């Protein structure tokens, strides 16, 4: 059984701790992750900007990297959903189209993998803090990951989950949107952080490092002390596995 | 276009132009849809509400309760009465209370039978379109009260339906300050679809020119999303549920 880690760019370059938490947490449940080093980016930046030819180049490296995997698991709902666009990109190319369909069927976001595939809802974590959860748009709306993180969080001992007002509102990241339309994006992330502050949570948890990087950046800019974590990190820290 | 041209001639000319444009317009659609012009009705497998909905029915008491709740929630008034006589009494009392001077009603035998003229000797009461020389919309516009009978109603949305005819003006339920709708209980259905589907069955030729589904008083939220009642239509509307 080959379960491969699709690390995604941000967790690779900026937040390796997220990948490390996933690897160790899953290992504790007997899942030895495989890491194909030839993987690069899912291609979302170029896809969303309209550069589909360039996207195909990136997509092919991903399709090749995971060709022999039985399961692929990723710490991002957004990058996982990007794989669902691959069949559309290769609709005129039977070879790559077949690989695209296969990858779409076997790729799971981290909490999907934990709950749907492994059937785990309680990792035995203890995390005695006030936590609020931001459901990232692509993961929740498009990929449909809504219940899994809630189920996992509800089982964490000592954790007080505070609902985030207007939780479903986009944080304003949107990839190149944050650069091209920086003032609109800035207004959106400021509003998101206002809502986070209303909860008085000590920790913000989510499933997508892009959104969390955006929110954490604004929190730090404003000198706020809220800790920002991926759910994998929170669970890993909570079980204290070494 | 020449203004001196007679209207029938002018309309005839417009009609000819329209038929020429129509051909090109429809051909453009089918060309873009990449198929020949479709002239036979296509199978429409998704017609109307989802299947589970068409079996949905409330009991008469539920219909009355729900209609009342829904109509009142948006600012309408509902009065439950047993007989048309009670309705006549209610209208007369109400007209006197508000000091009404003009009342206009549809020209229908059920409304004539209310004998409002006898009950309200000081109120000028007009029966819609009873005199061909009268300016009927002006009469309705100056009326304090308009009285109509509903052709049907849907409890689910809290809606009454009124239709136009020679004896039934659209203005009567629209222009007066207060609109009073008499709704016989046996015309109160559960779903809006029960009022709409018969329109398909009656067929084009038999439809009235105006069908109006009224769910409460005229309202607007256009200024700071602040609810205002009675913007253009009646700000006060009563449904008298009779029977």
């Amino acid at each position, binding site marked *: *059984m080959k379960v491969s880690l699709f690390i995604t760019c941000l967790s690779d370059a900026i937040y*390796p*701790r997220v990948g490390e938490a996933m*690897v160790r947490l899953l290992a*504790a449940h*007997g899942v030895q992750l495989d890491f194909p*080093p030839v993987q690069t980016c899912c291609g979302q930046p*170029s896809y*969303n900007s*309209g*550069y589909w030819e*360039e996207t195909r180049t*990136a997509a092919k*490296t991903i399709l090749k*990297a995971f060709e022999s995997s039985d399961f692929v698991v990723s710490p991002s709902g957004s990058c996982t959903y990007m794989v*669902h666009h691959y069949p559309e990109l290769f609709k005129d190319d039977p070879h790559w189209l077949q690989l*695209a369909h296969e990858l*779409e*069927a076997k790729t799971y976001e981290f909490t*999907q993998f934990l709950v749907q*595939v492994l059937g785990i809802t309680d990792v035995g974590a203890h995390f005695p803090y006030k936590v609020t959860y931001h459901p990232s748009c*692509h993961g929740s709306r498009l990929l449909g990951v809504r219940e899994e993180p809630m189920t996992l969080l509800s089982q964490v001992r000592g954790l007080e989950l505070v609902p985030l007002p207007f939780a479903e*509102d986009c944080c304003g990241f*949107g990839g190149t*949107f*944050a650069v*091209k*339309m*920086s003032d*609109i994006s800035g*207004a959106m*992330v400021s509003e998101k952080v206002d809502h986070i502050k209303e909860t008085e949570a000590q920790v913000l948890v989510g499933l997508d490092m892009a959104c969390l990087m*955006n929110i954490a950046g604004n929190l730090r800019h404003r000198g706020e002390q809220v800790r920002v974590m991926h759910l994998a990190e929170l669970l890993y820290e909570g079980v204290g596995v070494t | 276009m020449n*203004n001196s041209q007679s*209207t029938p001639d002018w*309309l005839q000319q417009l009609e000819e132009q329209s038929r020429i*444009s*129509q051909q090109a317009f429809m051909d453009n*659609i089918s060309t873009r*849809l990449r198929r020949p012009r479709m002239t036979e009705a*296509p199978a429409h*497998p998704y*017609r109307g509400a*989802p299947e589970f909905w068409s079996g949905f029915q409330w009991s008469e008491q539920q219909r009355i309760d729900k209609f009342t709740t829904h109509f009142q929630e948006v600012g309408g008034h509902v009065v439950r009465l047993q007989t048309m006589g009670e309705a006549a009494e209610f209208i007369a009392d109400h007209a006197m209370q508000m000091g009404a001077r003009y009342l206009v009603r549809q020209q229908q035998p059920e409304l004539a039978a209310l004998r409002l003229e006898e009950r309200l000797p000081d109120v000028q009461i007009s029966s819609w379109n009873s005199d061909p020389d009268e300016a*009927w*919309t002006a009469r309705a516009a100056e009326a304090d009260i308009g009285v109509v009978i509903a052709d049907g109603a849907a409890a689910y*949305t809290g809606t009454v339906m009124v239709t*136009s*005819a020679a004896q039934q003006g659209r203005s009567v339920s629209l222009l007066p300050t207060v609109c009073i709708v008499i709704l016989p209980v046996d015309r109160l259905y559960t779903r809006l679809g029960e009022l709409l589907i018969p329109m398909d069955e009656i067929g*084009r030729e038999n*439809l009235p*020119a105006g069908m109006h589904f009224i*769910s409460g008083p005229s*309202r*607007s939220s*256009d200024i*700071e*999303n602040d609810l205002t009642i009675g913007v*253009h*239509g009646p700000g006060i509307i009563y449904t008298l549920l009779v029977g």
Partner: protein
Amino acid sequence: MNPAQSTQGTVKERADVALNNDFLRNAVKFTTERLRSGKQAAATEHGNWEEWRERGRQIRLHTIAHLDYYLNTFVENARKNGVHVHFAPDTAAATDIVMTIARHKQAESVVKSKSMVSEELHINRALELAGIETIESDLGEYIIQLAGEGPSHIVIPAIHKNRYQIAELLSEDAGEELPPDTTILAGYVRRKLREKFLGADIGMTGCNFAIAETGSMVLFENEGNARMVTTLPKTQITLMGMERIIPSWEDLEVMATLLPRSATGQRLTMYMSGITGPKRTADGDGPEEMHIIIVDNGRSEQLGDPEFQELLNCIRCGACLNVCPVYRHIGGHSYGGTYSGPIGAVLTPALNRNVAEWDDIANASSLCGACYEACPVKIPLHDMLVYLRRRKVERGHGNRWESLGMKGFAVLMANSKRLALALKMGRIAQKPVVHDKGITIKMGPLKGWNTYRVAPSMADHSFREHWQELSEETRRTAPPMDAQTRDRMEQILRQRRASGITGGQHE
């Protein structure tokens, strides 16, 4: 009124103006939040919302796929009802027909109910130029008409104005000081417009739905002004987008379920009117002559285009505006067209044949998908925004620097060794600007980002650099997988193989 005014500059420039207008942002935010929570409550109360959405989508898909049949059926039936039907391929043709009718009627005044098509055609301007008084009778439309502006929301046109601004506009109109009290202001408009309704020569309306099988047109409204417009003047002109068709009254039940709930959270608007032809000979009121102008104006361009045909399914409820975080911050006028919000960002370039508006409208979205989720007929607006961006690139209208950047991106992502090297180089390059794992300089591409945030620095070692070590560690420490988990996973694999892997989501 200068509609051209709103389209000056780029979306980014117009948005910057809006972002610095606190009142506008608060007003839009307040109202859209009420509307979207109202919609949510209405959908929940009604129940089975997904089934209704799917049914609405199917009815619209079916009608548009057979539009020639249904539109033609509507036209023939409307004619039998005594309606004069006209066809307008573009703005010029529509204006010409309206003016022809107005001239023949020697009209001095036209009273209108809310119609987005008439906004799109700028019909008021044409009538005013001919010296014909044109009065918007919807309260919000009347206000923006006095202000000389276009609507900033599909359903709530004056969403961007407060009661003080409105009181000022109406006071000027009245020639006397009116207090900023909603009831008094609305009362003034009621009295003023009553006279106008009774005196107008022509009533002009839009059309929410046109029923093919009976040739009827249907209007949804709350104020009663559309009823006035279709009851009092002797001539009625209805402007109708060619895609407003539904087959039957039975189908109207679905639209009447979806439209008011999605727009304002109402079970039904206060008035829903079905108009089937001009008044009957013996009727005491209603228009003696009724014209329906069927407008294309770029709509047919979407037919047969697999990426954009669903745009014609739109029922103009405005739900996508109310949930859009971008719209909430920049307001409707920033979009620079008649239609704003997510639907406007796609519809405006589409109606302009996808080429006239090669500005940055499609970029004004974070692609969060809230619009799709809110849409009562499930139009994938977030996907369409990406298609627009792609077409712009494919047709050579892309930004030169961005194109170069994307080429570089592809080179990097084609090979993980290049990527790893680039990450290493980045780590070295960032050294001078990193403080406490953060970067605050406001230069180059980080300028916009760092105005609102602190950028994170790259990690001391990337995940891939640490992998070998990590892998060895877990190999030593991890327990074997238990049999139950293995069974689950094998079961999933077997199911996947049995289904022949045709893609799609899990479960």
